[in-house]
């Protein structure tokens, strides 16, 4: 019942920005418009689905159909991991004649040359509105294969009241010798997580514990610790001292029971809902949860703080980043191409990004960053204003993508079970990373890197 309630809450929360804020169908803030008469054209599309994504389609696709006369036929709508598998099967079956597909900067490199180069299809004036770095990340082999809708990067959310409590401050200072404040370093984060923990009622922190999620988290900690996953020749280097320090951080938190016991089975929903349930002090997560965390449906509504990703010993912050995007397939018939470009325009334009941003999602257009901040300031919404200034700084100074190579997901499938093995104590940190490095070495050799 609790789960069902949580599920309903998630659905309702992600729907809020789209139901509360009506769309101005004249799109007054979009300098470039891509309307056309597409009567008689039906675009076949495959989209990432789920509560955070569906509301945008529900608002924008009917407007597009009404204004252009075209039709959108959604052939498939599923989680990105499932969509990824489906696209791979489509490629194998030669069934890639649909027009528009959801994509992601971390996934796009795997699929070979199935996408159209959007340069020349989408007007340059429109492309120039996007953050140049995000467009760079959307480029594979010199071809712009995707148009970014919103970006991901994570920062550290915390429960404000426990940090403001005088007794907590006193106890913490006595135990650790410095003033209690949201962590600025990975070491402080670990110490504070251990300080807050009172399992099974309350945990200091948590992390996503499986699949690409934990690989990405490990990756950003390696960078923060001054290391790298690969050297210049793409040989694995993550088993060096920086990599070991990064993995040890996860192990220490797990051993100290500062994270929930089932954390290795957690993905984004579990960590987001867990933090909103008020049972976790510190939670590393993207901005898309922001409106929900601070809402009345969350047990910590009105009591949420946010700081930048703490620094590692290498003097850097974590900043594993990527963007949700849309692509047009080569198989899309030429006569549908303009309509397809128009559709991805309406899903990524200023109006669409403003609506997404009102829920906390990070825009990919420079102008939207400014406009959403102005809107939140004008409304006196200090929380959302702080959210965007914090995430804007992260996107500008900390964000980095995973290696944009086709082997990223196979690499992730090699390393994440080894990370888990170290965390649960089946292997030492060194044994686990060495084993993953050995297998990764084979992967990269087979792929012809050296």
């Amino acid at each position, binding site marked *: 019942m609790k789960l069902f309630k949580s599920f309903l809450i998630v659905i309702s929360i992600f729907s809020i920005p789209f139901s509360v804020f009506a769309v101005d169908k004249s799109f007054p803030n979009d300098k470039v418009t891509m309307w056309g008469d597409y009567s008689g054209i039906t675009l076949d599309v495959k989209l990432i689905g789920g509560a955070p994504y569906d509301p945008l389609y529900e608002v924008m696709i009917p407007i597009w159909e009404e204004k252009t006369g075209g039709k959108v036929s959604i052939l498939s709508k599923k989680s990105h991991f499932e969509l990824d598998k489906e696209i791979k099967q489509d490629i194998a079956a030669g069934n890639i004649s649909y027009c528009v597909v959801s994509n992601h900067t971390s996934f796009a490199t*795997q699929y070979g040359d199935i996408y159209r180069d959007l340069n020349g299809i989408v007007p340059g004036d429109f492309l120039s509105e996007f953050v140049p770095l995000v467009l760079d990340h959307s480029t594979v082999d010199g071809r712009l294969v995707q148009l970014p809708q919103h970006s991901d990067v994570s920062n550290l959310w915390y429960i404000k009241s426990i940090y403001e409590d005088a007794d907590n401050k006193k106890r913490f200072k006595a135990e650790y010798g410095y003033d209690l404040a949201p962590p600025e370093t990975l070491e402080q984060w670990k110490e504070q997580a251990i300080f807050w923990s009172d399992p099974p009622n309350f945990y200091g922190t948590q992390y996503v514990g499986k699949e690409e999620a934990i690989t990405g988290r490990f990756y950003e900690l390696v960078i923060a610790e001054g290391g790298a996953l690969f050297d210049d020749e793409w040989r694995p280097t993550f088993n060096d001292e920086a990599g070991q320090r990064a993995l040890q951080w996860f192990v220490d938190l797990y051993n100290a029971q500062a994270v929930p016991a*089932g954390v290795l089975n957690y993905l984004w929903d579990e960590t987001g809902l867990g933090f909103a349930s008020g049972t976790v002090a510190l939670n590393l997560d993207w901005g898309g949860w922001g409106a929900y965390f601070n809402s009345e449906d969350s047990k910590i509504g009105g009591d949420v703080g946010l700081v930048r990703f703490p620094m590692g010993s290498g003097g850097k912050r974590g900043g594993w980043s990527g963007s949700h995007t849309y692509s047009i397939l080569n198989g899309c018939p030429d006569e549908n191409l303009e309509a397809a470009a128009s559709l991805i325009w309406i899903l990524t334009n200023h109006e669409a990004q403003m609506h997404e941003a009102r829920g906390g999602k990070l825009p990919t257009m420079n102008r939207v960053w400014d406009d959403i901040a102005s809107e939140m300031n004008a409304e006196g919404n200090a929380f959302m204003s702080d959210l965007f200034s914090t995430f804007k700084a992260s996107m500008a100074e900390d964000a980095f993508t995973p290696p944009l190579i086709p082997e990223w997901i196979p690499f992730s499938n090699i390393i994440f079970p080894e990370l888990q093995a170290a965390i649960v104590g089946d292997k030492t940190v060194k044994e686990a990373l060495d084993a993953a490095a050995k297998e990764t070495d084979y992967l990269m050799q087979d792929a012809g890197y050296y």
Partner: protein
Amino acid sequence: MNRKFFSSPAILLLPSILAIGFVIIIPLIFSFYTSFTSYKLTRPDSLFNFVGFRNYERLIDNAKFWAAFGRTILFLAVVLNLELLFGLGIALLINKITWGQRTLRTIMMFPMMFSPILVGFQWKYIFNDNIGLLNNFLYLFGYESAIPWLIDKYLAMGSIMVAEIWANTSIFAILLLAGLLGIPRDPIEAARVDGCNSWQVFKNITLPFLMPFIFIALTIRSLDVGRAYDIVHIMTGGGPAMRTELLWTMIARIGYKDANMGFANAMSYVSIILSIAFTYYFFTKLVAARRELGQQ
């Protein structure tokens, strides 16, 4: 020769032969061929990159594959035996009931009506360490530690077994109940007249009559359990640290997520040895049991 080939029986059988050919034989030959290639789903041209026995040679040295192989055998052995035990117990109890038997039979089949995906989600949240029903139930009785049901080395596999058994024990129960209803009453009544107690009747009459049904159920379920995927995928995804990795979760990940279909197919062909071995064993036992009963 031609007359024989175009005879009426051959022509009548032709649609079936063609259907089987297209649906089963051609895909089998194709997938077997790909196991000798470096076929990647995302690189269709790699379909013609013949690598001989390389995939199979790599399998021999692949400790993770053999660990998953062993885990699958363990999973099969435990699940099949417990399902048999519980299914037999349920069938015997329902067979004793004289009122409401039909209703109970229908209720008993409820778990079978759920899709394995739903069963996986249901048990995943029952066993969730934080918001799960089981741990919260234990807290009511003063237990103060969150048991990591889906993480612990032994509990994780046990939790998946519980879900699998819950969902499918009724298959055993239904098949064995059918067997029980078909047992002639005369030998049982004769045994009772001769002074046999309930255990002796069960051991010497009921069980031998049931054995063919038991082996049919075991054969069907061994094929099913040997392909276990959905429930495991949802509950743990084969993790953590591969503690619950079974053959088909591993093969699906390598085939679809890594897109390494050539290697995944080589794994699949080695894996079906397991299904063939179990099926052969149970069929041998089935034939022996039928022979003992004087059936052909």
